[in-house]
């Protein structure tokens, strides 16, 4: 299979994950599209280097994540003209705003983006179904550090999604 076909197959299978990774780092719709393109370009360039040591999903998640983290730094270096309110609702069209799934998805996206970078990375990978050991490998961290960060991230997400319940269960 040629590079183009491999890439098309990869997009069909993992395109959703790549878009979600982009959405965790950028709330603005237009900039998110740009980040998606940048991630896809990075994956395209990195693809010939995949030798099969790690599963392809693992490999492209690493590339995407790494590209996204530099996006955060670049955005900090070149601030947008209008400051972005992370708590503001997405400007994506929402034909079914009342739907519970949509609402939870939006709030979860905002909560993930609001996490500090060091918590966002392991949380995002967990949400994408990666195991803590894989996350430790992807991020080059000690598994214990990953575990601690995940606990904090989960608490932060729980607080953001359901602050009242979170306060009740807190000792």
């Amino acid at each position, binding site marked *: 299979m040629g590079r183009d076909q491999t890439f098309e197959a990869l997009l069909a299978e993992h395109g959703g994950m790549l878009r979600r990774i982009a959405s965790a780092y950028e709330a603005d719709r237009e900039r998110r599209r740009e980040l998606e393109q940048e991630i896809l370009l990075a994956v395209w360039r990195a693809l010939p280097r995949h030798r099969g040591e790690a599963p392809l999903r693992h490999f492209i998640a690493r590339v995407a994540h*790494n590209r996204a*983290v530099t996006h955060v730094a670049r955005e900090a*270096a070149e601030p947008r003209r209008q400051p972005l309110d992370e708590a503001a609702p997405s400007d994506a069209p929402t034909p079914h705003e009342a739907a519970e799934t949509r609402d939870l998805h939006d709030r979860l996206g905002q909560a993930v983006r609001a996490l500090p*970078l060091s*918590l966002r990375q392991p949380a995002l990978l967990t949400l994408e*179904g990666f195991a803590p050991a894989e996350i430790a490998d992807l991020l080059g961290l000690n598994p214990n550090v990953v575990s601690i960060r995940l606990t904090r991230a989960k608490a932060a997400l729980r607080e953001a999604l359901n602050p009242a319940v979170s306060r009740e269960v807190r000792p």
Partner: protein
Amino acid sequence: MTRPDDDWTDLTQAWTETPDPEPRLDAGFIRSLRRRDRLARLNFWAEMGGGVVVLGVVGWAAYRGLSLPALATGVVFVLFALGLTLWSRRGDPGLLTETPEAVLRSALAQARTGYRWALSGVAVSLAAMVFSIVILIGLRAPDPEDWRLLIGLGAFLLICIGFYLRHARRCRRRMAAHQAALEALHAEDDRI
């Protein structure tokens, strides 16, 4: 057994359920990816190739009887430009497939490379000004056409310097931002 605090099932489900699937990428996207990839590589080789071509022109002019001072100035200028092109790209990290920290360090190195490239651009532009002054008015009595050429070239090089300085400022901002992101990555480590 999974402890309740470690159970991400509900969140994972909510995260991966995409309410409004984005449209598929159009057929031309892969072509545009390939083009951008090629352009990035081409940029470096164009600069190197351009230097070699100019060196060839200088050699040809020497063969045709170019004076020694003009020849020396030309050779020094081209070698200077080629040297700076190579120097500005040392430490280029290439593809990014390591850990986020490694990537940020690479990005920091890239920003430094960009900064060096911009500074070298300023240096090359200044050298080009000196070169053209030496060639056009230093080695013989200039005529009005030479002055017009020199003014045009000077204006062009000044614009180039302006662009290079702007790029250098951007790179410095990026360097600071990458440094801040690196610190943010380690912020949690300080609390552990």
